């Protein structure tokens, strides 16, 4: 197990290195305006070249790449140029990340609790009313683009319950709608997964044996079936936990929450290259680390899984 973990860790680092290099090279394709603040037009070509050279952008690519990794290892993410001039990227992130994590965590907990209970009740009333209602909900949420129903929730639910239309740090009730909208998608996917798994699993021998032994339906569901159903989900939990950092673009812009959601888009549109680079770096590492942690968590939860054997199957 330890040997495998170390090997996987090493592999993840290699993948992370490749992804970062690809992103770094992609960023070199972006327009050069992104390295100047205001007043790009006022500079003549020689001045621009001088600035670019002083920033090290005229060095050969290999040296640029080496410098990039050197400063990255020191924990230096670079300095924003246009978004908030001369402010270190880490500083910007420090003010924004807490908002996204708070909203994301709240939404994740709600969607786990509601999603799993919806899934269970759907599986237990298969092809009856609750199941059909739940399926309708899942189809709607999966098929209709999130932007559309988010808009309608913001428009009409605020009216009905007389809630604030925008987020305000001092008003706790302004949390309700953003968190509720954010959890809708999660509820649907967890419920769909749990239902499908339970319906498959209920025909298996160990469930029949448990029934024959005279166990109560509820304890079969919770102690046996649910525990098994949870294992494949465990693989995605660390990723979704980590992805709360990135925030939700829609929700944060609709309710004007000062989180991470729109930051990448903003940075791209204002061509703030160092900021874009830092953000892409963070998001890619989240994906890789999440996958790694997910595999580890899955093995810990279910001793039957040995990753060593089916390594190629992933």
């Amino acid at each position, binding site marked *: 197990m330890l040997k495998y973990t170390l090997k996987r860790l090493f592999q993840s680092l290699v993948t992370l290195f490749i992804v970062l290099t690809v992103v770094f090279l992609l960023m070199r394709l972006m327009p050069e305006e992104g390295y100047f603040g205001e007043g790009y037009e006022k500079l003549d070509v020689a001045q621009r070249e001088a600035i670019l050279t002083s920033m090290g952008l005229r060095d050969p690519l290999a040296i640029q790449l080496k410098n990039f990794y050197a400063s990255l290892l020191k924990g230096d993410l670079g300095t924003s140029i246009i978004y908030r001039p001369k402010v270190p990227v880490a500083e910007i992130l420090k003010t924004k990340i807490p908002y996204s994590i708070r909203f994301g965590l709240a939404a994740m907990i709600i969607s786990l609790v509601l999603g799993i209970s919806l899934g269970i009740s759907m599986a237990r009333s298969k092809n009856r009313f609750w199941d059909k209602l739940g399926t309708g909900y899942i*189809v709607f949420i*999966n*098929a209709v683009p999130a932007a*559309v129903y988010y808009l309608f929730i913001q428009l009409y639910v605020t009216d009905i319950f007389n809630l604030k239309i925008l987020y305000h740090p001092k008003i706790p009730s302004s949390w309700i709608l953003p968190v509720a909208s954010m959890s809708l998608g999660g509820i649907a996917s967890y419920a769909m997964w749990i239902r499908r798994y339970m319906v498959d699993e209920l025909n298996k021998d160990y469930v029949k044996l448990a029934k024959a032994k005279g166990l109560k339906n509820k304890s079969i569901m919770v102690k046996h079936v649910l525990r098994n159903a949870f294992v494949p989900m465990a693989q995605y939990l660390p990723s979704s936990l980590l992805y709360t950092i990135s925030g939700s*673009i829609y929700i944060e812009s609709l309710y004007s929450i000062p989180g991470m959601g729109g930051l990448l888009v903003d940075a791209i549109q204002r061509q703030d290259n160092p900021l874009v680079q830092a953000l892409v770096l963070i998001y890619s590492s989240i994906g890789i680390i999440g996958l790694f942690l997910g595999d580890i968590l899955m093995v810990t939860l279910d001793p039957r899984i040995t990753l060593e054997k089916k390594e190629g199957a992933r």
Partner: protein
Amino acid sequence: MGNSKINKLSDGIEDSLFEFADFDDSKAELTGYSNYSYWHSTVRVFMQSKIAVLFLILMMSLLIFTTIQPYLPKQKSPTKIYIDGNTNMQLRNHPPDFEFWFGTNSIGQDLWARIWSGTRTSLLIGFLVGFWEAIIGIIVGALWGYVRQLESIITEIYNVLDNIPTTVVLILLTYIMKPSVSTMVFAMCMTGWLGMARFVRNQIIIIRDREYNLASRCLGTPISRIIFKNLLPYLVSVIMLRMALAIPAAIGSEVFLTYIGLGLPKSIPSLGNLVNEGRGVMMVPSLRYQLIFPAIALSLITISFYVIGNVFADAADPRNHV
């Protein structure tokens, strides 16, 4: 007690059951014959779901109507700006009436015509993306699963591409290239084929070493024939599902890209553009129709494709044909 039971049982057995039966040619034929046909059964299972049939009819009529709508009489141009006869101003935010069925938008264009034109654009994007995803995904997935020398290379490429968040790729590509329908299709294909390829690869790994393939290989069947005749027919249902789901997904991505300001130019109506325009005026209750109508059209399309895709995938799976 035991004795009496045995007596009764032996009483019940008829002697005729133990006689030799004559061999009947025609009866033997009867059991061996099956009128099973793959597509026939698929259609039959599909038709059993009433909701799916309902959505199929809805989708067909939507498709037919969007294609013929510009040629119908009394249709307006989706990009023409209408002028109010009395004031000589643009006919802004005209509420729905007999002249403008869905009203006009904030610069005086007919919303009814724009919705159908937008539906055409969005469907075009959806179909192209679904089509390309399927082609690239199947080719890469089949090679990935079947040709062992390529396995580690493609796995590493997959890991790298899969770990860059989809949003980032979409945003970067649409940003680097000029906004147009083909840019958008290209950006979505860049990320979309990964899932398809991985799926095809996993399926092919499961079935590539089954006995019938082993037999085929021993008999010297060429690889292309094994892939096309032995392996891919197994995947018809999932491929259809993926293609059907790629359409709502592509429409959703288009809405997303438009939302963050990297969508199609305003001169090309698309459902994403229309929803976004509607969002701009949604705080005025009397103008909400500009958001509601495109949203309804969009939801109808995405929901029909989603439902039809899912039911069809179930129906195309031979295990459900019994």
